[in-house]
Structure formats: C-alpha cells, structure tokens
C-alpha cells in the first residue's frame, strides 16, 4: 500500500510542477500582451489628441470665416441676423395645395351636385 501512495504523490508533484511551469509562461505572455495593448492605447490616445488639435485648428473661426467668404457665391453664408429669429406664430403656414384637375370634366352632365370638390379627390383623381 505504501509504495503505491509514494508513487501517486510523486506523480502528483510532477503534474503540479508541469502545471506551474506552464502557468508561469502563460502569465508572462499575458503580461507582455498587456504591455503591448497599453502601448497601443497610449499611442492611440496621442493620436486622438493630435486629431482633436487638428480638428480645432481646421475649425478655428478665422479659417471658417475665410472659407465662407471664399465660397460666398456657392453657399451665400452671412452672419446670423436678429431678424432670423422669430416666434412660431410669425412663420407663415404653407399655402394649401393647388387644386389639380386631371382628365376631362363633364360640365354639361346631369350630376346631382355641381360642387367641384365632390368631383375631384385630394389626389386630383376624378370621382365618377
């Protein structure tokens, strides 16, 4: 019985040693990978900062003003005027859609109602 126990514990020690060896290398690999990812994050962060700075530089009011002036004939951009602000009541309602009559209208018929709206639907189709 005893030699079996010795053999088993010896095998267990071997197995654990092998496992610890592998774990050690796996951890080192993970650490290296993490360092690489962190380097990448730092580089991207730098890049984002640079892009933001560039965006701010390209959108500086002086440049936009010059661009608006250069492209005035195409865009017609002007400084905002006080008159451009108003209340909702001041905005004119859109005009009602013009009456469209398609097809023939039998003016000499003997329909019970001569009302023109009854003869044309909203979409302009003639209603028989």
């Amino acid at each position, binding site marked *: 019985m005893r030699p079996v126990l010795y053999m088993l514990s010896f095998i267990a020690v071997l197995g654990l040693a092998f496992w610890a060896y592998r774990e050690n290398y796996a951890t080192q690999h993970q650490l290296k990978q993490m360092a690489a990812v962190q380097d990448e994050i*730092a580089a991207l962060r730098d890049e984002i900062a*640079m892009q933001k700075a560039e965006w*701010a530089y390209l959108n*500086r009011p002086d440049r936009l003003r010059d661009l608006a002036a250069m492209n005035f004939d195409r865009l017609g951009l002007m400084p905002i005027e*006080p*008159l451009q*602000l108003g*209340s909702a009541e*001041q*905005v004119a309602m859109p005009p009602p859609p013009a009456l469209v009559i398609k097809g023939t209208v039998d003016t000499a018929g003997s329909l019970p109602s001569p009302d023109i709206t009854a003869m044309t639907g909203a979409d302009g189709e003639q209603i028989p």
Partner: protein
Amino acid sequence: MSRIPLRPLARILDARAKGENPDMIEKENLAIRHEEMRDKSRARAERRLMILALSFFIAFSVIGARMGTLAASEPTEPRAAAGGSEITAQRSDILDRNGRILATNMMTHSLYAQPNDMVDPVHAATELAAIFPELDAKALERRFTDGRSFLWVRKVLSPEQMQQVHEIGDPGLYFGPREMRLYPNGNLASHILGGAAFGAEGVDSAEVIGTAGIEKQLDTRLRDPAQSANPLTLSIDLTLQANVEEVLATGMHTLQAKGAAAILMDVKTGEVLALASLPNFDPNDRPGISPTVDPSDNPLFNRAVQGVYELGSTFKIFAVAQAMDLGLITPDTQIDTKQPFVYDGFPVHEFDNHNYGPTKSVSDVIAVSSNIGAAHIGLMIGGVRQQAFLKAMGLLDPPQIELFEAASARPLVQKNWSGLVTVTVSYGHGISTSLLNLAAAYSTLANGGLKVTPTLIHSDRHTPGPRVVTEKTALACVLMMRKVVTDGTATFADVPGYEVAGKTGTADKPRKGGGYYSDKVINTFASVFPANDPKYVLVVTLDEPVETAGLKPRRTAGYTAVPVAGEIIRRVGPLLGLRPQVDGIPVSTVAAINAPVKDPVAQE
C-alpha cells in the same frame, strides 16, 4: 544530577557536638542552591534576548534593504495593473463653454547634439543651418567643436523638420520627446489664455509652465496630475469671442484707434462670455517686450483687465443709483445744471461747453450726460458715503478674475477724498479703474442690485453675491440708461429688437507729465441688454478713436464706441439665442428669411 542535601547528617552531628546551631548549615546550603539557580536562569534569559535582538536586526535589515532598493531603482508601473494606469497628457486642456478646444498639448520632438558622437560636425552644422534659417552655421560649428559633450539645438521640431534632420544622418544628433502647448485658434482669446513655455528641461521630457493669463494663474490646477484628464472649462464662448474680436477690430481700424477692448458678461453669474483686447498676439509665439515701446501699447498688454483708465461719464449712473437708494432723489427730481459751476476754485465744464439750462430732471442728467448735474448729485451724497459705495461695487479694488495680470490693475484714486474728488468722481474723472470692474458694476445694476464677481470658469452652480443696490433703484437705473439710447447720447446703439440700455463715457487722456491731452480720448460705452429683462452687459472701449466722416473730427463716445457696441450687440444677440422683441415684424419678412435657400448649383 546529584543534589546536595540541605542538612547533611555528618555536618549536623559535627556541629551539634561543637554546640553550634545546625540551622546555619541549612541556610548556607540554601543560599548556595539559590545562587546556582539564579546563574542558570540569567544565562537562559541572556540567550533569549540575544535571539530576539538578532531577529529584530534581521527584520529591520530586510526592511531597510527593501527601502534602499525601492529608492535607488527606476520606478516602473506595475505591469499587471488593470486599465487607468496609463499616463495621459501632462497638462490639462482648456476648453470653451461648449467644449471647443482653446489650448491643448501636442507631441513633438526637441533636437540636441552630443558632439563626441558626431562624425562630421562641419557638415552637420551647415545642413542644420540650411533647415533652420535662424541658426548660424559658423556659430553652430564652433559650439560643436569646442569640446562640450552636450548641447540643445532646438526646443521643438515639426515632423518635416525632424525628417530632414534624420536625413543628415549624423549619429551625434538626437531627438527627445516633447509635449508642447498648442493654441489652435491663434490670436483668438490670446489675452485670456496668456501662453506657456518650457520650464526645467530634460532629455526625455520638459515641464510646461504658464507664462501669463489663465495659464499662469491656474498653473497648479493645470499641472495637477490628478486632474490632468479632466479639462478646464472656461465661461468663454469661442463663437462669441470671434465675433466680438472681429467687429471690434473693424471698428478700431475704421476709427483709427490705437487700441480697443470689449467685455461681454452674464449679469447674473458674472461669467465672462467674451473678453477682447486689441491689438492682440499669438500665444503660440508670444512677442517679446520691447524697451522702446510703452508697455501699455504692447500687444501683450490686456486693456480689458490690466489697463486702468478714467472711464468718464459711465460713472454718473453710480452717483444716481446711490442717491436714489439713500432717498435723496427720484428719477424726476430737478437737479441744478446752471452754468457756470465752480467748486473750491475748480470750474466744472459741460462737454463742448453745452448749456443745459438752469435745471434738468435726474433722468435727463443721465440722458444728456451733464457733468454739473452729476456733480450736484455727488455733493448731496458726500465723500465718505460715495467712497464706501464705490468700494462695495468693487470699483476701488483690483479686478477679481482668474487672470495673472488682474492683481496688478490697482485702481488709481486720490489718497485724500476731498470735496473736489467727490465732485469729479461723480462724473468719472480723477478715478481710474479697470474695464472689468466697470463691467461687473454694470452687471450688479443690471441684475437687480446683487454684487457680481467676474469669473472665467464655467460652472452650473452659482451663489448670488450680497445686495449692494435695492431692486427698485437698479430697475430705475436701467430704465434711465434705456433713455440714453432712445433719445440721449447713444442713439447709434439702438439695435432694433434688443432694447439696449447704456451709458457713454468720454475721458481725455492724461499726459505723462500731468494735465490732459485735448485731442486724445478714451471712449467707453457700457451697455445692458435687453433692458426689460437684463441678461448681458457689454462694455466697449476705444483708445484714441476719431470719427472723420463729418465736417470736423468727432471724438465723443456717441460716435465711436457706441456704433461699435451696437454692431457687436446686433451680431452676438442672435448667437446668444435672444429673440428680438419687435412688435409687428411683417410675417412675410420672417417667412422669406426662413424659407429654404435653393441651391443655385443644383438648379443649374
């Protein structure tokens, strides 16, 4: 182990035979035994103490050795730490109130040389001088060959320049990483931002320190590593700032002024939305201080904060506000404006020697800007009370704002507040103060009388200041100032829809040697809008403007600062989201402007 008996029979019997006391023998033996026991336990205790001392020594040695290695080794970040441990920018960004970047950092490189490693110093020097025009080939060559082992060539390089230096191919030229401060908007808001420069420089990094403006005032906050990730948000609005600076520059050039300044402030919070001083500079490349130019004419000089000027008639409203609060006058009280008026041997003149008749109502004294009327109101108040009131309004202290230059702008007042000082201060002469103080004082009147402390930091929370003027008086003052614009000296600022109220001020410039110039003035217009619900204060000042469209040159604020302020309000009003309050705008006008613009390109 053999044990000596306490009463050995032989000795006892012997003693008894001699007639001695046998107890003595027992005592003697007992003493010997105790001595032996004591010696043994001492030896044991000594051994234990030695072991204890040794273990303490080892423990302290281990701790000491660990501390030594920690102190001596290069610090490294724990590699296994989770996210958030990476170092972000070393100096916080500065943003405007809408999150647009005013100042940020950029990675670049510095160039240094180690001549010991150089292959061909002469070639390197000529090539470097070709890349950088400001370097002198001869001087550089001398420095490369005079035996030194290290020298800086340039503090920052652009990527193109770095590539060119690479192409020289000399192994003695090295690049060091540098984080430099960048102001992407150039000259815009330059006086607020100030500028930054390199402090202590190393090969791997250099510290960036603020040299002026908010960069210097809040340097500790901006450099704090704990706060480097969250940017500093200013109350400035970049769009408003750009518009104010544009209109102000146009006005300054049209009116041939040599300088101009403007401040736009929220009357309730004291947040400064735009602060401009012209001429300005590029904070990326701060100009130097020239010994031949007057410091107050240097572009670096902040006229809106640093400069203290006599602000003239803009002060009259303070005399009126105080007198009304004290119950001395109402807007309809008749004030003596009779010419001539001499106080203590000093004649008080009206502008251009106008005569406004024997009396005027308080409201009209403000509207036509009568010096004599204001002087009489000042005399009603008296010097002590006047001084206390101006102090409460913050006009007698350096402006409080997060700019380094503010502390030096100490107002100039007479030490002895005599009756004559009371008279002149009532109409804004004999007292010089910062424009920012004036803007804050007008905000105090505009918001209903609560003291305003100007600030450049945007904040959602705000605690109202102490009451300086009653609400009723503050309201009446704004109404009186509205009259100045509708039918007084500032009619050019009557922007339709925005109900501008304000007060003009024209002050002759003091000569260096004493006295005043007759043809050099400082024109100021302090305005509040909209008058029926004051939200913003705009103060505009022009240094030595002249309006030459008429038959003779005109130098009053009404023809110079007022139209400029009017144009600024017309431009910034819509940007502030203020809807013009105009009765009966024809519907068609609004509809026409609101109608979608047809794209001419698409039509073709």
